[in-house]
């Protein structure tokens, strides 16, 4: 039913990604650099982060504005005033958002951007690795003909720091899902916007638990190369978030803080 989407996806997302990834790998491989495909994934992730930087900057500014608004005296006052009238509270909050020029969904973009990229990279890694014969066969349809050196670099060497990037974790490789879980949690915690509304705060708490566990769990069954991407993506995000907003709610002493807004806390 969605077959018509495949050419669009391949042309604009998958084909460019797999070719850039293979191009970086080919260059590294020419210099016989050990773990070339792992390094290619890391460099490729950094490249993607740079390309998506404007989106992040925009949404992080929106988040900062939102955080400042939620710590304001007026905001806290209406929480108390309309504590028993949730509909009215919502209306007043919306008015305050509009008055302050804040889009409450403005911080969503950073959370959404990684997903299509992750899907594209997942496809790129699995097809480039050719863990299944059909995947390597399909790769021929996606490598650009004007870059014949990419095809000549097939099959990629999937060894990186003693790990098989095409394989799922085993042995000491289980440290990879653990790092995925940890870095996802840290970034999630740093990005949490304090919520005065108990329901929203509760949802934050749930997400801080569910999201890292979910990502950590699926990384157990995915190629290690994908997890490597996810770790690097998170680490860069953590650095970026720190430079923008400090540690946020990371150091508030609670692992899954409801992050209920209180005046005077957090980085200004």
């Amino acid at each position, binding site marked *: 039913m969605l077959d018509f989407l495949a050419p669009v996806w391949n042309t604009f997302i998958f084909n460019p990604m797999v070719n850039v990834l293979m191009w970086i790998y080919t260059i590294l491989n020419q210099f016989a650099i050990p773990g070339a495909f792992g390094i290619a994934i890391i460099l490729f992730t950094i490249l993607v982060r740079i390309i998506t930087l404007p989106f992040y900057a925009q949404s992080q500014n929106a988040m900062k504005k939102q955080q400042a608004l939620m710590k304001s005296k007026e905001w806290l006052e209406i929480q108390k005033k309309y504590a028993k009238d949730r509909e009215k509270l919502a209306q007043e909050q919306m008015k305050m958002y509009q008055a302050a020029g804040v889009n409450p*969904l403005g911080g969503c973009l950073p959370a959404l951007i990684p*997903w299509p990229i992750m899907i594209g990279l997942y*496809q790129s890694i699995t097809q480039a690795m050719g863990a299944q014969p059909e995947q390597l066969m399909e790769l*021929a349809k996606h490598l650009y003909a004007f870059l014949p050196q990419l095809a000549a670099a097939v099959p990629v060497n999937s060894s990186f720091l003693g790990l098989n990037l095409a394989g799922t974790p085993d042995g000491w490789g289980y440290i990879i899902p653990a790092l995925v879980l940890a870095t996802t949690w840290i970034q999630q915690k740093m990005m949490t916007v304090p919520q005065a509304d108990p329901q929203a705060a509760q*949802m934050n708490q749930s*997400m801080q638990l569910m999201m890292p566990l*979910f990502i950590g769990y699926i990384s157990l069954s995915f190629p290690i190369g994908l997890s490597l991407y996810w770790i690097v993506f998170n680490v860069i995000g953590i650095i970026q978030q720190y430079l923008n907003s400090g540690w946020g709610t990371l150091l508030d002493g609670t692992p899954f803080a409801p992050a209920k807004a209180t005046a005077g806390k957090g980085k200004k």
Partner: protein
Amino acid sequence: MALKITRSAVTLFAMLATAFLLMGCGAAPATGWASARVVDQIVYVASPTGRMMALNAADGSVKWQFPTDKSLGSLYSTPAVVEGVVYVGSFDQISHQHRLYAIDATNGTKKWEFEPGGPIISSPAVGNGLVYFGSNNKKIYALDAATGAKKWEFETQAEVWADPTVVGDTLYAPSLDHKLYVFDAITGAKKWSFDASGIIVTKPAVVDHRVYIAGLAKLYALDTQGNKQWEFQASNWIWSSPAVANNVVYFGALDGTVYAVDTQTGKLKWDQPFKAGDAVRSPIVIENNTLYFGSDDTHIYAVDAATGQKKWARSTSSRVLAAPTLANGIIYVPAHDHILYALDASNGQGKWAMDTSSGKPVTPVPGVVK
């Protein structure tokens, strides 16, 4: 209400959507593309349930299955049937127990098994009392055909997917490390190797003291000492093993082009290469001056070997990556959804079809002839 749609909720939605997408894109299980073999009116074919099946060639009824109590995983390895024994390799993503099996062709009981330590995609070749095959653990093996005892092994630099070819006391075994290795088939001593500058996934064709091998999008003709005689540049990767008849070598490419190249000159024989609607991975089979092959475009083709003109094309229920097998004027070919077709080779009309996952006949035979 609008305020309750927080960033967390959007993230949760994205997370669930991604989970569904990741399950559906690229994570599909390996399906296998083993071709069938026909010996003494019995069709030996792999089922998607991970079993070898022996069917009566006349009507597709099941004679036996191996094993009956478990799955072997995915079967890319086309069985070799020699002197009453079926040899087949497995690719088991679930148990990771990849083995080469020797099965009694008469009743489907196991004679022996060998575990190389890596998935087996290459089809075994039998000769000199030995079974030869490659594995994803980068090794080429020679086992005693009677006992399964290892006689020799050779480690290449990458996975070995291509089917080896044994001619007399010489073994030709390509690797994904871009090289064709040639051995003394008895001792395993390496005679020579040839660098094809790209992955080799096709079975070498050895005819009239010439070796034909494809590396990426090039077909090479070598003499039996490994000296290149000519090379031919195709329009895409060649995954269809070259087939030789009447001084012409035929092969398909992943863009759907089928070529006929003069074995002496390396030049095109037909005015125009034949063009299928999608990739031709299926090895080409030649009989009665006709080429038979399948395509990713879900068709089985019969093409005049002299002119490259289509004789007939039959649509099927799925892509066709396996090679057709001919016996007594009937083509047997499994599609990628593992419906096995038995077609009249002269006109493509269906004789019978069988769903090898259920072991039940499919009526009427899917597809039409054009």
